[in-house]
């Protein structure tokens, strides 16, 4: 083989070792998506072959040499109906099949584990419920439904995991969700696929799929000692949210216990479900939707709380199932108003008998 030039040889070696034509299937949805993809490839190949065969054989049969005089044919309703109805039927089949997969990818099961992901120029930050942070990587266990709640802090980004066949846009000012269940441990590509400026092509990372035991080990190693909800609680205290949201009879703001998922009556007359998006909106743009019976006096926290901060607050509110914790934060902020140390102390105290789930 020495007569092959070294450059060409290197190229061939590279081809043999790293050439791929199909990505790994590492999630539960991947084989389902691929089944439809293969079906489409098959239909396309058949369609293309029919066109090529027809064109080629007509070109041979009716070339000027063989067929000097054209015979005028006006058209044929039957033939034209055939090639209208058959493609239409196939396209409709693909539409239904595709829609089934689409709804599956974007409808998370109720028991899924939620991980928050914030995209910003040019990195991905993941926030695990246990308080573990990651940048440009995401550790997840196999065999468990994982829901990602995505948001962008600046421009549009898109969270894409080709090996899982899932992708979701991270949008500024709006939560989006996607879910998946990983099946095969390994490290897979994470790409930002929505063009987002200078270092778009460096906004990449690793999806590390671990066995459940491996994941538990990783969680223990990476913990900062505080869960995401506890971080939120700290922030809740330091922003003095409990000054109003304290469930006292004369409170200026509504109680936040059990608010998550509830139907709320608004002063404007409508009702709204208090989901992640609503809670976020109420922190950043509070005058937009005021709960019935309360004055629109809450200031906006736009610019004061980062998207990660909002996520922590939302996670905290999600996990509030009594007013006890709010009272706690209120007590600590009341005891030492404006003190830097107090909120932190409140957070740490919470561990033994907190109402926070995590």
């Amino acid at each position: 083989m020495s007569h092959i030039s070294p450059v060409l040889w290197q190229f061939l070696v590279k081809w043999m070792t790293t050439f791929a034509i199909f990505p790994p299937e590492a999630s539960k949805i991947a084989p389902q998506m691929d089944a439809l993809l293969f079906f489409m490839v098959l239909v396309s190949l058949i369609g293309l072959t029919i066109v090529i065969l027809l064109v080629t054989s007509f070109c041979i049969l009716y070339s000027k040499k063989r067929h000097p005089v054209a015979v005028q044919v006006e058209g044929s309703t039957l033939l034209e109906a055939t090639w209208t109805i058959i493609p239409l039927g196939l396209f409709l089949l693909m539409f239904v099949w595709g829609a089934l997969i689409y709804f599956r990818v974007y409808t998370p099961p109720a028991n899924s584990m939620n991980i928050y992901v914030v995209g910003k120029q040019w990195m991905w930050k993941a926030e695990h419920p246990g308080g573990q942070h990651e940048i440009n990587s995401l550790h997840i266990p196999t065999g468990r439904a994982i829901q990602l709640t995505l948001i962008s802090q600046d421009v549009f980004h898109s969270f894409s995991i080709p090996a899982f066949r899932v992708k979701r846009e991270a949008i500024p000012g709006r939560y989006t969700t996607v879910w998946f269940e990983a099946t095969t441990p390994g490290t897979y590509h994470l790409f930002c696929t929505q063009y987002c400026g200078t270092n778009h092509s460096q906004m990449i990372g690793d999806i590390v799929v671990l066995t459940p035991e491996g994941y538990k080990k990783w969680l223990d190693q990476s913990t900062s000692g505080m869960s995401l909800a506890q971080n939120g609680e700290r922030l809740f205290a330091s922003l003095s949210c409990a000054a109003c949201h304290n469930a006292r009879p004369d409170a200026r703001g509504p109680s936040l216990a059990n608010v998550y998922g509830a139907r709320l009556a608004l002063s404007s007359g409508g009702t709204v479900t208090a989901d992640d998006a609503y809670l976020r909106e109420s922190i950043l743009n509070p005058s937009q939707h005021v709960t019935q019976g309360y004055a629109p006096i809450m200031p906006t926290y736009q610019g004061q709380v980062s998207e990660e901060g909002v996520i922590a607050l939302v996670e905290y509110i999600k996990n509030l199932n009594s007013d006890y914790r709010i009272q706690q934060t209120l007590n600590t902020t009341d005891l030492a108003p404006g003190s830097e140390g107090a909120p932190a102390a409140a957070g740490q105290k919470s561990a033994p008998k907190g109402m926070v789930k995590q």
Partner: protein
Amino acid sequence: MSDTIVSLPDQSTARIPRVNYLTKENGILSWLLTGDHKRIAILYLISLSFFFFIGGALAGLIRLELLTPQTDLMATDTYNKVFTMHGVIMIFFFLVPSVPATLGNFLIPLMIGAKDLALPKINLLSWYLYVAGGILAIYTMAAGGVDTGWTFTTPLSTHYVNTNVLTTGLAAFIAGFSSIFTGLNFIVTIHKMRAPGMTWFRLPLFVWAHYAASILMVLATPVVAIAIVLIALERTIGIGVFDPTKGGDPLLFQHLFWFYSHPAVYIMILPGMGVISETISTFSRKRVFGYTAVAFSSVAIAIFGFFVWAHHMFIMGISNYAVLVFSLLTMLVAVPSAIKIFNWTFTLYKGSITFETPMLYTFGFMGLFTIGGLTGVFLGASGTDIHLTETYFIVAHFHFVMVGGMLMAFLAGIHFWWPKMTGRMYPEKISQLAAVVTFIGFNFTFFPQFILGMLGMPRRYASYPPEFQVLNVFSTAGATILGVGYLLPVLYLTWSLKYGETAGNNPWQATGLEWQTQSPPLTENFPVTPIMDHEAYDYEWLENQTRERQQEKEVASAG
């Protein structure tokens, strides 16, 4: 019906008529102030080719950078500017005006038997607007470029880049008006200026396709103009239409943008389909199979084309039920394209087929457009779109449609009507070679990108993981071949202006009215207003005409 074969007319005795639209007046001013649709078409052809090669050179830079996984040829910022300018120039300054502004401008009056377009001054104005927009785009490049991608996605374009968004937007805005004027002109002309006997169902399908595209130009382009103005307002005085921190909606921009830019895809492809209907009929000597179906499929594409824009946003968190509706409509818009492909195929049936260059480009179009169309279905089905969107699969798909389809059709048309435009034939052998080289180069360039997309390689990446390199090397190698395929026509077509054989009135023995007048035509197109007394693509009528003319000649010479 007789069995006589109408042979190609003897070209050795043909002379280029001394009086024609090219020789009528001389001097640069006679061109720059002309109202003649044919001269304006030539002006467009020259300026379009210029922009095509600038856009092509940028594409060359992209392919060179992607030869290796690292960013080595240029900085990521430069790369981002290069692909943005490639998109802006190719779409706004080549693909959208390509066939309509050159061939459409030249041929629509000739085909319907009119002296000119209805609004000749507006036609000239639209060329000036196009050039003004083009100069602004070139200025933008010289002044440092722009790196938003041709889609100008907010809030990136409004708050996060410091490059020349405003001048690029203005360039597209101005070029948009050029396109609106052209569309308006075509609509008025086709409605009001058809020759006696030229009923709607005697129109060549080329005219039908342009009519459908014109409706899109007139109705869709204003929306992108509005979107650009809103971007400018948000960038300059901070009006929060799209900015979420001011209560704006960043997705609104994408709705507005794609409300134009999806129909724009049909503005680009429909005129190309018109060209294919003409060439395939002429070179198989047969009336287009199912004329009415092909005509109405153009209109159906134009109508459905307005209601599919959100299929660009399936993964953006729009309502799942909206996704259902837009996915369904997308499937429906695919059907008329399938109808056209099969109708063209069956036009060949029992024809008498020859394989001149325009026909080779036509076959290229049919193959590549079929692949482009079918892969569009992969993206229209909402489920598979999740995996494939924003990857190289998209890039490959729209290049198959736009470059494989539209550019092939453009080249087919340029070769087909070159004799009419210039009075001279192009050299056949070398142009057949160029058609084959283009086809091979195209497939080498863009087919590997389908596989890259399946693997998940994102578009607009200056660097990429090393396992994608082999396919990228293929793609870059193919682009080199493709470049040769595009350069060849420039050389031999220019050569043929002086040395090409004289064409005569109707070198292809085609039936359209444009072929029944001299080549190059008079400024007024026809010596007397023609009367359309036969259906479109009536080759028996043409045979009878030729036979009568021969008999007249014999009688004359005998007398």
